[in-house]
């Protein structure tokens, strides 16, 4: 395999609070291969957005990057000066933000907000034709060129964010729940747009979300996050066919299916205090298969080629129902 385009090692992002640090992202590692799309799933609050902000070096007070290494295109991102890192932003590493609704400057025209990022990184503002080409790529009408964000629907704003992300042909795009604020129909359409643009440009992508169904159609590999830790990484097919971690299993079985009616498995959120995680396995308090071994540290280990998991009972439980 060639060298990964993005490699994250031991990334820790903590938020300081009066009662101690929230370990929002705690020691996560993964690689993103060139041209690949990696899905990052996990319930709300599991630290997906925080991990992204760590990679983008956008953690602001009270948060801080408490350790780790990020390598993009062979370049150590943590070691770069602020100014050097700023130049890498967007031209190499672009973001489709979680809150696209509020991610556009209300006092600037849409076209100007696309133009300014291009001007900053290439030195020349894009001409009208280039902006319209971007609009067309994501299915936006020409008339919004002169418009302000408040004149657009949520779906349109989301597309603007996609158009903005691809404007500089970045190496990696991180799409943080690019669709979850939209209604179901628009969600699918925007997701298709995203997939289309990705395939057209051949860009590598990290796609964040909690919709396993959508993930299954869009990504090559899936990383599952729980309470700040990655508990399993596997190719999509393996993940759905033979999930190694009990939590992955629960996530997959919670995908509604037409052919088979099952009771919903997930009933509660993360149960432990994020400031004070349990010793050993992060999932032990909610795991149906917990035993004495779970209080020992659970490093990621290879279950089969391409599939790594942080559970000492993975082989044993394979095939067992949750």
């Amino acid at each position: 395999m060639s060298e990964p385009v993005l490699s994250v090692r031991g990334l820790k992002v903590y938020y300081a609070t009066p009662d101690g640090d929230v370990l929002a992202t705690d020691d996560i590692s993964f690689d993103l291969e060139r041209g690949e799309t990696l899905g990052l799933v996990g319930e709300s609050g599991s630290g997906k957005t925080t991990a992204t902000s760590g990679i983008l070096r956008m953690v602001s007070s009270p948060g801080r990057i408490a350790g780790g290494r990020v390598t993009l295109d062979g370049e150590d991102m943590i070691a770069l000066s602020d100014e050097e890192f700023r130049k890498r932003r967007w031209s190499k590493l672009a973001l489709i933000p979680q809150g696209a609704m509020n991610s556009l400057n209300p006092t600037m025209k849409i076209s100007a907000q696309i133009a300014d990022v291009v001007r900053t990184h290439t030195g020349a503002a894009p001409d009208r034709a280039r902006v319209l080409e971007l609009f067309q790529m994501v299915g936006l009408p020409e008339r919004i060129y002169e418009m302000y964000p408040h004149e657009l629907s949520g779906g349109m704003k989301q597309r603007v964010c996609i158009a903005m992300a691809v404007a500089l042909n970045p190496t990696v795009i991180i799409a943080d729940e690019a669709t979850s604020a939209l209604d179901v129909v628009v969600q699918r359409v925007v997701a298709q747009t995203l997939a289309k643009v990705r395939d057209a440009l051949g860009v590598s992508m990290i796609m964040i979300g909690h919709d396993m169904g959508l993930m299954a159609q869009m990504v090559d590999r899936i990383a599952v996050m729980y309470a700040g830790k990655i508990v399993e990484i596997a190719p999509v097919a393996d993940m759905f066919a033979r999930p190694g971690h009990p939590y992955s299993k629960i996530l997959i079985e919670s995908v509604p299916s037409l052919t088979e009616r099952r009771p919903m498995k997930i009933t509660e959120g993360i149960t432990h205090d994020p400031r004070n995680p349990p010793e050993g396995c992060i999932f032990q308090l909610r795991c149906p298969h917990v035993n004495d071994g779970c209080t020992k540290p659970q490093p990621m280990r290879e279950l089969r080629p391409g599939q790594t998991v942080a559970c000492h009972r993975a082989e044993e439980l394979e095939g067992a129902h949750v």
Partner: protein
Amino acid sequence: MGRIPRKYLINRLITLALTVLIAASMIWVIPRLSPVDPAEIALGRMASGAGAVANAEEILAQLRAQMGIDQPLIVQYFKYLKGALVFDFGLSTATFPTPVSALIAQALPWTLGLMILSLVITFVIGNLLGALMVWDHSPKLAKVAIPAAMVFTSIPPILSGLLLMWIFAAKLRWFPLTGAYGLTVDPGWNWAFVQSVLHHGFLPAMAIVIVTFGFWALGMRGLMITVQGEDYVKLAEAKGLKPRYILYRYMIRNAILPQITAFALKIGLLIAGQVLVERIFAYNGMGKLLYDAILDQDFPVIQGVSYVIILITALSVFIVDLIYPFIDPRIRHEGG
């Protein structure tokens, strides 16, 4: 593009007209409620000048006719409103028979000049400093020095005026104590005069600036903290835009909007504060005119000055309201 929604415009015009009408009416009604008879005051002044007055009743009646207060109230009221519309407030009783409007015309440019200068300086400086207090890339000094200066924020400008006057005019003698220009210069477009005006205007302007910039800085600080947490600022950072560009185009540009509304609401108080500063510096503006009129019980002048100052306030608010849609696209389109 760039058009003000009609509904918004009509709304603002109505508010402007109502403000002026209500203020003018108050100024007219209040004295009519008073038992004091302006004709008798005028007579008293004549008497003190000429010793005894023989045919007092006759002269009183004459004075009343001259002042127009022998007519039915409703007629007086509409005559007054008509006059106010064209800035005709009758004749000054202290410097009889100078028209009040002539006195105001002399004083107004000074007040407007000082006002525009000090309000603009204080608004710009205050907001800039408030923004710098929040901005991540500001020099450390900004975050320490500005809050210290903030203590003066709520002190009225007359008090700061007194202090500045004492230190820089009475003790150090760097600046003249009173007046708007020196007695030795010729008013007109010559360098000596301009220099003298700037020299005289500096302390009054500073008196206003040092105690009002903090108000804007504080407000701006709160707004900037809010804007800093907005998704669009975070995305601007992720876009790798230059910090300075983000500061003015993404942060200040949005945080300033409520400040401009606040400016419109605050103008009245700021102008009133300035009138007092003019009074203590004996600056040749509306403040001094008002103060002299109070001393002389020159009622038409008091009325005229109050009316014009309120009109300036209302017009300033109106102008701010007209500019607002051009800087906030959301108002422009919704017509709210």
